[in-house]
């Protein structure tokens, strides 16, 4: 028979893994870290313990309010902190850990103070408390269930949106992903997992005190998550197992070397382990194992050739037609200005982009073209003036909100999701605004499976119309530059834009075929009724596409009109190509 000691160690390893997997999700997939995560396990454990020991609630039922209250606490802390870019969540959770830890000690009436209280009922089934072996069974089932659901989650729409946000937050926002809301959901989920782990723990040991929920154990969770590998859900339990073994070893060896050693051996081991793993094994045990397997595989057999691309059922014309916007709305920029620290980047600029037309913005370097784009798509807020779209003011709308309203954008220096395939990039565009949520993805209802198939099919269609049908499963980082530009265009089309902002789409395209293909796609976009605003340096390219041209110089509009009129405007020739015009002595500078 298995000894109780081993079973207890296994149960604790499993509950540790359950709390750590929340951190894996948070750090490895949402790019945030919680430094006081045991505080959430503490809130869950104390709620569950107090409700069952003092109010006689069934421990199974007590877990529900325990996880709910913890989730609420996490949402309240996370909502303000995740508004800010960067790692303020780390700091906030560190502070929360200190506050919760002193609350556990100070609120003596409720928590029993520093010494805690006993008499917490064990989980029971059919009227009798579980034995250690049965408890192990229950914990293992819960861990397996959680691992299975979370694995589904990270492979679903939510997982793709998270990866997209990690690869490029601005790219994700402009594709319609509300990054803050997504991170908040994951943070709340990670706290709920910790609470579940805390509840399982106290109903096993039937005694509670602040000790297990202190800062040091929050660090232990981080060590487990990093050791196992931040990009792997099962890694959390692998890390927990490895740490348990390692600590057994430390407990065995250290007293022989240092007879007086006490709690410090944990601190030093956790601290050093954390540093060493992050520096020398940043993807943890599972990452290292995956690399090893990959090496043997690639030696064993050469990668097979990609199977022939399956062409989508719909014809290109039908696909373009499916992109036709329901409404035609003009974009009106009126007297907009913005300055950065005293430097006026854009001054008093007005123009209207008529629906269904291609409006080009041209001007020398530093004229304020990209700043104007950033103003329109909500990345920069104007200091004066207003931008209206179909009569509606865009003031204060976030980029992701604008994207969901139908404003698409590409970037001068491409902002694709580099760790994802071409197909996945476009899928994110298709499903960013609407799609199955966290819960539905974990449970994988039939309609989730269907939605996924439809999204992929739609993404393939869009890849086909920009000429990337054969690259669906190619990673972005392996695509040549010209194809990356086309992919970004496909992603922008995937959000079903009414208006598309293209920031220097031709820059970096060296061959004539690439340029011709781009011109053809932009023409199709216009024919589908999508309005386009375009910035580029290549005059022939701009003049061949534009219905109207706006000329900026020094942050101001100096001319506006049809390409022919603008080209012959003396102001433009002087301001925009002054030197070239005088140098070429009456040549044709603008063609």
């Amino acid at each position, binding site marked *: 028979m298995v000894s109780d000691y081993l079973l207890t160690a296994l149960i604790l390893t499993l509950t540790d893994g359950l709390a750590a997997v929340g951190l894996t999700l948070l750090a490895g997939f949402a790019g945030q870290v919680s430094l006081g995560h045991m505080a959430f396990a503490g809130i869950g454990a104390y709620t569950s313990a107090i409700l069952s020991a003092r109010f006689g609630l069934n421990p199974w039922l007590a877990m529900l309010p325990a996880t709910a209250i913890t989730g609420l606490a996490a949402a309240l802390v996370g909502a303000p902190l995740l508004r800010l870019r960067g790692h303020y969540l780390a700091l906030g959770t560190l502070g929360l850990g200190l506050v919760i830890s002193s609350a556990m000690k100070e609120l003596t009436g409720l928590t029993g103070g520093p010494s805690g209280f006993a008499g917490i009922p064990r989980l029971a089934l059919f009227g009798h408390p579980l034995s250690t072996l049965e408890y192990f069974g229950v914990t293992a089932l819960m861990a397996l269930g959680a691992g299975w659901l979370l694995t589904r989650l990270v492979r679903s729409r939510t997982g793709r949106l998270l990866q997209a946000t990690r690869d490029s937050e601005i790219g994700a926002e402009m594709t319609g992903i509300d990054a803050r809301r997504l991170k908040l959901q994951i943070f709340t989920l990670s706290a709920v997992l910790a609470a579940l782990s805390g509840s399982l723990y106290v109903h096993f040991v039937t005694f509670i005190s602040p000790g297990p929920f202190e800062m040091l154990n929050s660090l232990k969770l981080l060590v487990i998550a990093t050791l196992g590998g931040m990009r792997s859900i099962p890694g959390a339990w692998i890390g927990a197992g490895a740490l348990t073994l390692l600590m057994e070893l430390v407990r065995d060896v250290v007293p022989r070397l240092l007879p007086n050693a006490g709690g410090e051996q944990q601190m030093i081991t956790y601290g050093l382990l954390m540093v060493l793993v992050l520096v020398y094994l940043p993807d943890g045990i599972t990452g290292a194992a995956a690399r090893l397997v990959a090496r043997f595989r690639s030696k064993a057999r050469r990668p097979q050739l990609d199977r022939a691309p399956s062409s989508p059922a719909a014809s290109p014309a039908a696909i373009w037609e499916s992109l036709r916007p329901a409404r035609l709305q003009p974009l009106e920029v009126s007297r907009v200005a913005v300055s950065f620290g005293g430097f006026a980047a854009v001054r008093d600029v007005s123009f209207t982009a008529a629906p269904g037309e291609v409006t080009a913005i041209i001007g020398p370097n530093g004229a304020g*073209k990209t700043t104007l784009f950033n103003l329109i798509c909500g990345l920069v807020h104007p200091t004066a003036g207003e931008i209206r779209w179909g009569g509606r003011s865009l003031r204060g709308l976030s980029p992701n909100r604008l994207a969901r309203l139908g404003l698409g954008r590409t970037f001068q220096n491409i902002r694709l999701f580099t760790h994802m395939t071409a197909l996945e990039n476009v899928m994110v565009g298709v499903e960013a605004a609407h799609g199955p949520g966290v819960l539905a993805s974990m449970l994988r209802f039939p309609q989730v499976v269907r939605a996924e198939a439809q999204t992929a099919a739609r993404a393939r269609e869009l890849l086909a119309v920009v000429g990337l049908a054969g690259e669906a499963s190619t990673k972005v980082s392996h695509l040549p530059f010209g194809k990356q530009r086309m992919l970004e265009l496909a992603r922008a089309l995937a959000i079903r834009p009414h208006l598309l902002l293209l920031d220097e789409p031709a820059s970096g395209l060296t061959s004539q075929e690439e340029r011709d293909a781009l011109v053809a796609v932009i023409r199709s976009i216009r024919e589908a009724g999508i309005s386009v605003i375009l910035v580029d340096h290549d005059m022939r390219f701009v003049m061949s596409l534009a219905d109207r041209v706006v000329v900026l110089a020094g942050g101001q509009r100096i001319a506006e009109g049809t390409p022919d009129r603008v080209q012959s405007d003396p102001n433009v020739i002087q301001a925009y190509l002054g030197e070239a015009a005088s140098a070429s002595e009456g040549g044709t500078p603008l063609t």
Partner: protein
Amino acid sequence: MWAQLPQVLVSGLTLGAIYGLVALCFVTVFTVTRIINFAQGEFVMLGALLTVSLAGSMPLPVAVAAAILITAGAGLFVYWLAIRPARSASDLTLVMITIGISTALRGLALMVWGTYPSPLRPFSQGPDFVVGTAVISRQALWTLGTVAAAVLLLHLFFRHTRVGQALRACAVNPLAARLMGIRPVLMHQIAFALAAGLSALGGAVVAPLTYASYDMGLALGLKGFVAAIMGGLVHPAGAVAGGLMLGLLEAGAGSIRSSLTDVVTFVVLLGVLLGTRVQPLGLGEREIDAGGV
């Protein structure tokens, strides 16, 4: 309540001065290296405990100087052990690495010095000063004076020495600084050592007031960081002002109920983060392209 006010002011400013000094260390490291060193508080702890130990066998000023030098060395060691090898890691990884360092240092201190807080005799002996209803200990004056002198010297160092100017150049524009022949790695080392040494000085002056213990660094580090954030994270003067404000707020709350002090830090932290739009460079995604080329 009002009768306590002068006393609250005195103890608030004393504590606040230490927070300000630690905040200054955060600012120094952050501006030069773009790293938030969550282990900063542990250098305060090392400075305090080393001073206590050394003061037993040598004159106090020598002990303080030695503690500063040893801690500065520890700062360099940490840089080479953990920061330099991870220079290409993400911000997230660096945050976690410095948390790991912090824990390892705390464990090391627990092993060497044990659990019990150790006292240090005040820098000068004599009765406390009484001004109105407030009692001002001599050590409080030492603390205020030391921090003021350190801030002034640091200011002069950054303004008027070649090394200080090189550090500032590196903070403003690392690429341009490198093109001018300034070695960033050297600057990073100086920043780490300088911040560690300054933190140790803070630990030495605060030890007679609060005792020195292995676990004093966590709270001091967090509060120093909150103070730095209050000052905008890149402004030395703002950091010191933030420290003083945080100290006063804490002393005020502590006079109502002593267990409130940690809660105050947390609430101030949330309040500051919500109230201001601090989005320092390097913490998030790169800045939005300014346009043009």
